């Protein structure tokens, strides 16, 4: 299929980025994203995720190559035109003014209003809609310094949303969030795709990226690879990405595991699906393989109305434990 630049929301061709030509962080970067796609930029700390994002929206000058937005080089746009094509959510959450949620979100209309910044009916409607979309409408009169991290981040996203741009770039939007807030935020972002918006966000969180992104941009050893999450999974880049850290990416489970050397095999059997499942993950954490037939130690999980019991046989005796914590202490005890 022939490539047409104007088909793409953003195309990077032979891009070199960094602070100064001699110390380019990344060279010859070739990437693209289509309208309505959600792209997760993955890479370890200090590999240039923020620098890449800031470069493609013009906050940092590009060292070499071209960034095309809707088929037109970035530098061709003047600032105001650019502000109507791409909106940005920074990774910095500190130092926000003590204004209300609604006031902050309204600021996003700036590139569309006249010199006095007066809001018309359409502007007001967009602000309302954006507040609803990020579920901040009930809190719209609250001051920013009274918000939780998740609420603040959703407010910043609503501000970018009312800027009404086909491309939204977010620098580590989930960095400070707890798990429920993280998933909520990702859910909101994925919702934007339906309007044809392209979302590019950087993250450390490969697990959620695999769940929701249409495409990954992965920075590894000074190169940026792109592809569907699954394509990159097949290529084995995730294992390589975290190889030095002792963490392994389990391609079957879609999650990270500590690469602990095996301490032996334990036979696990018993009743209660939930209790068995958690016992299994506890053994995995402790560094034991589990099998149903072999192994010098065996664990039987017994479920009754009064609770669960863990019967451990082997290791010179048979012991019964009332919880996994006690059992774990026994298993890792030096003999």
């Amino acid at each position: 299929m022939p490539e047409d630049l104007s088909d793409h929301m953003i195309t990077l061709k032979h891009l070199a980025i960094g602070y100064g030509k001699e110390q380019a962080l990344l060279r010859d970067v070739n990437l693209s994203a289509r309208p309505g796609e959600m792209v997760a930029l993955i890479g370890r700390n200090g590999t240039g995720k923020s620098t890449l994002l800031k470069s493609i929206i013009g906050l940092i000058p590009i060292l070499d190559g071209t960034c095309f937005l809707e088929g037109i080089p970035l530098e061709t746009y003047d600032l105001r035109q650019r502000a109507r094509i791409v909106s940005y959510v920074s990774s910095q959450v500190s130092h926000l003014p003590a204004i209300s949620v609604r006031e902050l979100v309204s600021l996003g209309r700036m590139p569309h209003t006249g010199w006095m910044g007066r809001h018309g009916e359409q502007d007001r409607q967009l602000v309302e809609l954006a507040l609803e979309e990020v579920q901040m409408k009930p809190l719209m009169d609250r001051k920013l310094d009274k918000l939780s991290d998740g609420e603040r981040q959703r407010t910043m996203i609503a501000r970018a949303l009312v800027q009404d741009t086909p491309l939204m770039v977010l620098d580590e939007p989930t960095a400070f969030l707890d798990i429920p807030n993280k998933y909520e935020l990702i859910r909101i972002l994925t919702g934007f795709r339906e309007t044809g918006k392209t979302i590019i966000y950087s993250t450390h969180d490969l697990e959620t990226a695999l769940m929701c992104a249409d495409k990954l941009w992965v920075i590894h050893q000074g190169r940026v690879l792109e592809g569907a999450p699954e394509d990159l999974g097949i290529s084995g880049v995730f294992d390589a990405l975290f190889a030095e850290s002792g963490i392994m990416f389990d391609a079957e489970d879609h999650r990270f595991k500590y690469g602990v050397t095996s301490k032996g095999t334990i036979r696990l059997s018993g009743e209660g699906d939930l209790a068995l499942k958690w016992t299994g993950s506890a053994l995995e954490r402790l560094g034991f393989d589990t099998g149903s037939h072999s192994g010098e130690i065996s664990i039987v999980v017994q479920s009754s109305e009064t609770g669960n019991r863990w019967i451990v046989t082997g290791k010179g005796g048979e012991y019964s434990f009332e919880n996994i914590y006690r059992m774990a202490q026994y298993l890792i005890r030096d003999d």
Partner: protein
Amino acid sequence: MIVSLVLLLVVLVVLDIRFGSVRITLVDMVRHLAGSDTLSEQQLIILKKFRLPRLAAALLVGAALPVCGLQMQTLFRNPLAGPYVLGISSGASFGAAIVVLGAGATGLVATWSLAVAAWLGAGMVMILLLFVSFRIKDVMTILILGIMFSSGLTAIISIMQYFSQATALKSFVIWSMGSLGNVTGSQLLIMACAILPLLAGTLGYAKVLNGLMLGEEYAVTMGIRIQRMRIIIFATTSILAGTITAFCGPIGFIGIAVPHIARFLFGKSDHRILLPATILTGMVVLVLSDIVSQLPGTERVLPINAVTSLIGIPVVIWLVIMNRKAQSI
């Protein structure tokens, strides 16, 4: 809030005209304007030569200095920024010191050379800060550098004072106490010509000031030409603060404190409201300070710089103690 502040301002203006060694009441003034000869020749001279120019100076200073402070606070995103803290007033003082102490200029020449020297001094510090702020992103560092510039210039001024003639020294010391009463008609005209268009201009870019509240990255991505805006704000601030310092001497803590009083009174951060609110609040505070400095009922007059400092310092202390608020303007 606007209505009550305007009413308060009107009352204060009337009181400001009334108090002084010679009493001039509102009733007499109204009757005089209506055609009857209720005011004596002496009262008229006092009114035209002293009271009204002093009042006009108070209104101009009250409108302009807080606008400097507000713009600096927004640009640096720091509640403690102001023409004083950033060394702009010291720069203007330095320029004035060169004219008064160094050249010993007096009279009409002094009027103009003082103004130009104060502009240059304020502009010098501003350009230095502008240069620094392009390279250093940390706001606290910039503020500390401003305080250092300010202290350095003060040190140089005290050396100049040490070596200067007694008469020049005396006029400089009196100038440094600040005075709204020494402004002559022609100086007032210069002040008005420099201040009023700039205030109008500032109101014209209120929307952009709103955009700066989120910091430079957001400002740029919302289409604001940040370099140009910085230069405009720096230039505006040095001309405003420089002009005032040249003719009225340093007037402390108005620039930093009044924007906070206005924020507190109006509860708004939108510069389209906050700017006019700050101007109005500043005029009220300055006219009030002027009345206090006249020490109604006595023959004595306090230096205006001392009065404004005593009003402004509690506000700044309150700000520092309420540090959580101070983190976010």
